[in-house]
């Protein structure tokens, strides 16, 4: 079965620096990969989606890369701010149905941006 690994320990970053989060997956070749943000007591919120034929995608201060050979995605937050502190989840479609049959999530990385 497919497996997703994220660095589950808390990641502490100084404000203004770039935070880089890693998502590795096995036993699967996804058509795309998604990143979500989750704040305490709230549901996940979608951030970015990157397809297998895209190497990189950007949205404001966020950047995602997708290396299907390494089976890895990197999620970057540039010019990080304390408000970026949250848990970030990586997710893949369970099967090839574009996620219509649900997503498999990593356990998440807890990011702390220190002033």
């Amino acid at each position, binding site marked *: 079965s497919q497996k997703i690994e994220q660095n589950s320990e808390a990641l502490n970053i100084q404000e203004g620096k770039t935070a880089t989060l890693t998502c590795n997956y096995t036993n699967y070749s996804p058509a795309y990969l998604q990143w979500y943000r989750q704040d305490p007591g709230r549901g996940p919120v979608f951030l970015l989606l990157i397809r297998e034929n895209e190497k990189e995608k950007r949205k404001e201060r966020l950047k995602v890369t997708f290396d299907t050979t390494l089976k890895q995605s990197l999620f970057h937050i540039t010019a990080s701010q304390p408000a970026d502190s949250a848990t970030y989840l990586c997710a893949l479609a*369970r099967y090839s149905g574009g996620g219509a049959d649900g997503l498999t999530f990593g356990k998440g990385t807890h990011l702390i941006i220190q002033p």
Partner: protein
Amino acid sequence: DAGITQSPRYKITETGRQVTLMCHQTWSHSYMFWYRQDLGHGLRLIYYSAAADITDKGEVPDGYVVSRSKTENFPLTLESATRSQTSVYFCASSEWGQPQHFGDGTRLSIL
């Protein structure tokens, strides 16, 4: 406001009781999902639905029942609650191939 609403937000019940968690979305999305989130496991899919009257099992369906008589509603029922079902439950909706929109969850404690 458009969105996805879960109720109740908090629920405490006893083992053996039946409990139903409600999920309502206003986008008319075709697909709806139920996940549970536990420490050490992350989010795991319980059931999903592609349309009204079409449901299918996810990764951890045992002990749960779902129905979808209307596109906008997707209730999740624990027929005989067990302590292992203590968790935070999230409902989500989407269109095919699109990102999922999540509710803020129901925190369920089973004593």
